Every structure is written in C-alpha cells, then in structure tokens.
C-alpha cells in the first residue's frame, strides 16, 4: 500500500510542478527569436531553444499544462457522461438497457484510435473537437462498468431491505450502489489518464489535436523532428515527459488494482472463516 501512496503523491507532485512552475518562468513559450534558434542548453535557456528560437523549457512546462490538463478534463467529462448513463441503464433495465448495450457494443467494436481520428476528422481539427472525440470513445467503458456493478449489487439483500424501509431511489444509488462501483472506477480512470495522454499526443502529432503554435508534447515532437540532428533535446525531452506521465499512470493503476484484489480476497477469506 505504501508504494501506491508514494506513486499517488509523486503524481500529484508532478501535477503541482506543472501548475506552479510557469508562474516563476520569465520566458514566453510562444516568443519566436530566429537569432537564437537551436541553442544548446544555457543559463538563459535551461534546455536550449527549438527551431524557431523558442525556449524549450517553458514550452515543455506549458505544453505539459496543455497535454496533461486536457487529458484530465477529458477524463472528468467522460466520467460525467459515463456514470449517469451507466446508472440509468443499470437501474432502468429492460428495453433501455438493451438499447444501451447494443449501441455500446457497436461503439466498442471500433478501435479507440480509429474512432477518435475519424471523429476529429469529421468535426475538424482543434482542441474542443479533440475533446469531444476522445470523450465519445472513453465514456462507454465507464458507463458499462457502473452498469455492471449496479446490476450485480441491486438484487442483494441489503438493497432490498433498504428499499423496503422506504429509502428513496436517489439516496439508494448515491449512498449504496455507487460506492460499490467506485473502487473499480478509480482503477480504470487512473489507467486511462495515461491512455488519454498518449491519444492526445498522437492526434496532435498528426495535426488533428492542439494546433500550433500552442505548445503540446505531441505537437512539439512533430516540430522537433526536422531538427533532430542539430537539437536532439527538442525531440527527446517531450517524448520522455509523455513517457513519465503515462508510466506513472500505469504504475498507479496497477498498484491500485493489486490493492483492490488483495482487499477483495481478504474480504472473501473473512466471509469463509
């Protein structure tokens, strides 16, 4: 459990760095200075400059705000859409549930990347459309997870007795049914932070996401590509940054999952004894 706690603290620490650091930086990530292009690291430019003479360090930090920030917004939106739909489908059951399952089946048949690329393609490149496209891909998993957990839980005795004693439906869902789904939701959401970051970066790399000159890690890799030979840092650093965040999200998710399984096993053993 200590390892999980450490990872979570570390992750939030990195987030804080992205939030706080720009306040202390004096370089403008958008300022072009062709005289200063492709500079090696120096006191003025801690990581050197890119092909247009923009300060890499500040682009990296502001880019992180954009990449990671956008991924968190997308995650929250996906949860915001997925959870209510899942509750509704699971609680209503019957025809509504069957329609939901059919629709989500056909959505899930398509690989994430193809759906997201085609959707941004149809809507046009840009941040808002990118967010719509990824939310459209991601909400389904949450809705299905909540629905499955609700289905498993709603016929248990304690729910029946709560209902018999006159507990209103809303209260039942919020106080009893949702907590059962919560732990699993947290695990999936943690793993998804990384997946969403990868997706934003890939789409921005091919020019469908955040538009230049806005700093974004995937787009920065695209810009740095031409100068790999003269300024390798411009290609290496954003990639490493993406990897670190995705790695953190994967490790955190794995660790939480393990903890969850251990917890469930412990509960079962307890039941048997």
């Amino acid at each position, binding site marked *: 459990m200590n390892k999980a706690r450490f990872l979570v603290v570390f992750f939030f620490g990195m987030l804080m760095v992205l939030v706080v650091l720009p306040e202390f930086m004096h370089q403008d990530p958008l300022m072009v200075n062709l005289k200063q292009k492709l500079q090696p690291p120096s006191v003025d430019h801690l990581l050197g400059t890119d092909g247009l003479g923009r300060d890499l360090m500040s682009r990296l930090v502001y880019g992180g705000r954009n990449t990671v920030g956008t991924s968190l917004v997308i995650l929250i939106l996906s949860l915001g859409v997925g959870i209510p739909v899942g509750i509704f489908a699971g609680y209503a059951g019957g025809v509504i549930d069957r329609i939901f399952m059919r629709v989500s089946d056909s959505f899930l048949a398509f*690989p*994430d990347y193809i759906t997201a690329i085609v*959707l941004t393609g149809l809507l046009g490149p840009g941040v808002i459309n990118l967010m719509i496209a990824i939310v459209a891909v991601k909400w389904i998993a949450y809705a299905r997870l909540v629905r499955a957990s609700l289905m498993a839980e709603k016929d248990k005795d304690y729910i029946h007795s709560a209902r018999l004693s006159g507990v209103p439906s809303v209260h039942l869902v919020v106080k009893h049914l949702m907590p059962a789904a919560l732990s699993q939701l947290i695990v999936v959401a943690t793993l998804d932070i990384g997946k969403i970051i990868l997706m934003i*970066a890939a789409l921005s*790399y091919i020019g469908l996401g955040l538009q230049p000159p806005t700093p974004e890690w995937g787009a920065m890799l695209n810009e740095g590509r031409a100068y790999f030979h003269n300024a390798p840092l411009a*290609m290496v650093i954003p*990639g490493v940054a993406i*990897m670190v965040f*995705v790695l953190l999200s994967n490790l955190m998710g794995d660790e939480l999952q393990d903890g969850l399984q251990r917890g469930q096993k412990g509960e079962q053993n307890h039941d048997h004894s």
Partner: protein
Amino acid sequence: MMTKLGRRLFEFILFIFLLSLISFCGIKLAPGDAVRQLLRVDDVAVTNEQLEIQRELMGLDKPVMIQYVDWLSRFIRLDFGNSYMTHQPVTQEILTRMPATFLLTCTSIFVLMGVALPLGMYSALHPQQWIDRVSRVLAIMGASVPSFWLGLLLIEGFSVRWPLFPSMGTGTFWHLVLPSLTLGLTMAAVYVRLIRSSLLQSLTQDFVLGARSRGVSRARIFFFHVCRHSLTPIITMFGISVGSLLGGSVVVETIFAYPGLGKFVIEAIHNRDYPVIQGYIVFMGAIIMLIHMLTDVMVGYINPEIRLREGRP
C-alpha cells in the same frame, strides 16, 4: 452451430446498416459545405451558379430522407462516389491501398509474436527469475512509450545515424522493418504479460497433475496441453488487438510515409475529403466485425468447454 452462425450473420448485417447510418449522419453533421469543399479543391473561384449545378448533380438539394435512401442504395453497391482529391472512385482507391496496410499489419503481428511468445513462455516457466523481471519492466515501459515517438527514435537510430533501413516509402522488404518494429514492439508489451499470466494459470489446472500422474512428459504437457488451454484468452485478445493494430497503423504510416490506408485517410481528413472518410469508416467496420466473428469461431473450435456449453439447448 448453424443457428449461431445465422445469428452472427444477422448481427453483422445489422451492424453494417448501423454503420451506414452513422457515417451518413457524421457527414451531414460535419461543418462546412460539401459542395464548396469539392469545388474548392481545384483552387479556383466559385460562382453561385456553379454551386447550384454541382448541388443538383450531387442530389444535395433533395430532402434528407431521400438523400439517405440514395446513399443507402449506392452503399449496397459499394459505391461511395469519387474522392475529392483524386477524382477516382473511393472503393477503388481503398482497395488499391488495402494490401499495403494488410502487409504491414501481418509483419507487425510477426514481430509482436516473435517478441511476446518466447518472453512470455520463458517468464511463465521460470517466474521471478531475471528474464521475468526484465520482461515485466519492459512490458510496463512498452505500454508507456508513445508509438510515434518510438518510430521517430528508430528512424533516427537505424536510418539516419546508422543507415541500415530506409525510413520512408515502400517497395522492398527492408521498408517494412522499421514500421513493423514500431507497431509490433509497443503492442508486444501487453502480450508478454498476458501470455505469462495465462500460461501460469493453466499450469495450476488439475489436468496438468492428471497428465503428470499418467507419466506424460513435461515438455509434451507444456506444449500440447497447457499451451492449448491458454490459447483462449490470447486469441480473444488477439481479435481485439488486430483492430488496435489497424488503428495504430494510421499513426505509423504517417510517420514512415508508408502509402497505406491509414496515411490515405489522414490526407483525406486534412483535405475534408468526405467520400473517402465515409468509405474508410464502412470498410474498417466491416473488417473489424469479420475479425471478431473469426475470433469467436476459433475460440469455439479450440476450447471444447465453450463449444459444448453453447451446443446444449
């Protein structure tokens, strides 16, 4: 078995129908005027008269319902119209690029299996030894690396600094090396762990003990009994990831300027070439659905438990 196949076929037709509806609505909802888009591609000034004529020609002046029926009837004949970019029929354009993408997918699967099978098997047979630990680290790293970044690093390493392989285009076998490594290696990460855990789980089954007590050799048990038992989750996962491979190929084809379907659709998106995007959605949907069906049939064939359970009334 037959009724199951029939049901799958019905589902398939329903899915394709739904797909046609979705791709039709998608185009209708997309911003921008398709007529303007078509005429703008040639980069000449457009008069209102031309717009009207083209609109009538494309049947865009009719009510939406009629337009959909028109689109559906052409859809059944696999006619998606002409590409705005090349002025060639979309179906033909897609079919000429299909083999290249298919080839890349196959070589990537080859890389994927070449890495994941030995590592996964060895890790399962010798858990907690150093290869297992290394493969665990590699797996989690591999799942975190952006595939396009890996592709760029491979180009820099093996094409620019150390010119072993060509970095873009197609033609020879060597052109396939770097793209398939990029796609295969990032996907292999997940498989190493999946194969390991699946094999480990099979190794603890009762039938292993049974076979050992009958004096069957360890190697035979592993390769014939355990491996077969482990195949079910691996094949299921495989069916899902062929789709992801096709999705990943979009990015990888763009990096390596590989003239496949993925690169074509990105070009189409940048040029707002709607007929091509429509055609792409339908083709991909059909292929992915077919692969899912194939996976189901194979799993049923390999795992008698599932076959028998579903055979019963």
